[in-house]
């Protein structure tokens, strides 16, 4: 992919983000932060590539450390979001 293609995806995704986030109800702003936290850990993809590659031990260990940190966030972020969302209930009628 060339730079312009990537930039196009990025710019369009910013617009998608803008409209999607404005439609989030303020009551769920804390879960929003927790889940954005979890999904931004998709950076684990980069860490996995570094950890998987052979030949450069420094890069490998940097990658593995990155995998640990991102995993804390992924599991922790989604779990805490699920825990919070399960608490939001409607009036019983």
């Amino acid at each position, binding site marked *: 992919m060339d730079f312009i293609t990537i930039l196009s995806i990025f710019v369009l995704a910013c617009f998608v983000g803008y409209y999607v986030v404005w439609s989030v109800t303020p009551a769920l702003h804390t879960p929003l932060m927790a889940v954005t936290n979890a999904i931004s850990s998709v950076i684990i993809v980069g860490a996995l590539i570094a950890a998987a590659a052979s030949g450069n031990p420094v890069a490998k260990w940097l990658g593995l450390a990155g995998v640990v940190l991102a995993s804390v966030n992924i*599991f922790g972020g989604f779990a805490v979001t699920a825990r919070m969302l399960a608490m939001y*209930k409607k009036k019983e009628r």
Partner: protein
Amino acid sequence: MALLPPDNTTDLSIAADAVHAVNPWVSLAYLIAGVCFILALRGLSSPSTSQRGNRFGMAGMLIAVVTTLITHQIASVAEIAGAIAIGGVIGFVIARRIQMTAMPQLVAAFHSLVGLAAVLVAAAAFVNPDAFGILGLDGNILTVSRIEMALGAAIGAITFSGSVIAFAKLNGNMSGAPILLPARHVINLGTLAAIVVLTGLFAVSPDAGPAENMMFWIVVALAFAIGFLLIIPIGGADMPVVVSMLNSYSGWAAAAMGFTLHNTAMIITGALVGSSGAILSYIMCRAMNRSFISVIAGGFGADTSSAGGEAREQRPYKQGSAADAAFMLQQAESVIIIPGYGMAVAQAQHALREMGDLLKKEGVNVKYAIHPVAGRMPGHMNVLLAEANVPYDEVFELEDINSEFAQADVAFIIGANDVVNPAAKTDKSSPIYGMPVFDVDKAKTVMFIKRSMGGVGYAGVDNDVFYMDQTMMLLADAKKMVEEINKALAE
């Protein structure tokens, strides 16, 4: 999308492009992951769809991770599985055990991890560019990749050190008061300029010599420093803005690394998270009527002690007991409860919900009113009330409920202060002037739970609501006071 440019025929670039997902199915998988993340945020538009949204998020992450693993030669599966397991268990246990009142700290801590992970990935890409397919024909890292890498590392480092400070302030390891260095604006701007200049030099430097190495690591070090410097002058009540801002940064860091890796899932996610944090920061700033710049410049509320002292004369106020409050609440037709950070500190949310239930049994109409900046992060109060089993359709935002105070019999303020201060509407010299506040002065009776008359709100300004004729001050710990009211109500 992943077609080779016609001139890429050397061995090196073929190796590089193998990493860059030549297989269109791989690109498609990352795209699907990105779409799942969009749906995850989309689900949050209503509590009823939010749990499904969260599952979309998990699915997206699974797709991204599995795709990466099956498309790369893995030297050691055990090590990677071990790393994921260690991180996963730690994250899961923390998420299960954390108290809901500690959510702002937790989110700050998680941000710091994303930031550090971004730095590690950027550093790994710098050390082993071949694995990331970012080498040019001449065997050096491509110029555009250098910029993306340095930016990703710098933003990640700022996110990391900034979030560590935010965590320490929120968790009470560090005073919430702003720490003001002399000439801090000069230092900050100088450091930022140095980062930009060095990133530029790093991008155009011709080879992988030691000088280039140094430049990359200096950029990272300066970025760590600026994250630290940016957050220490910002006070506790501005933390909602800071936490949102760091949320945004963690997204931009992920996006920058997505550019380096040409990975659609990372770019889409980065853009989503980046805009999400930016919008939340904007909402928080608007709710305080402060510009983003003035929050970042810091120092707000620094002179609390001096501002309070001399200007404030002792004015008469009425103090009530729990029994008085219970009696008046029972007689009321409608009660609006305004929770603030003090409720979180006192862990009074469960007692408060119990009070609401008791009043509802008496036929009182109970509603909750939440200010956008109540608490230490966006939506903090909503989560605490949800935790205490308050139905979300009894909880209202500022603009939806403010007109109802004129008809309300009781405005019940628990742990909030600045968000009900009428000075924001009338006193142009007040530091909170222009901030949208609840019109509690229009309610027939105001009950104000406060620890003592001594302390003033975060902004350090006196509150006329204390001294109004219809105000009853309930001076005690919030949780104890509500529990006593409950006892009186139950009798």
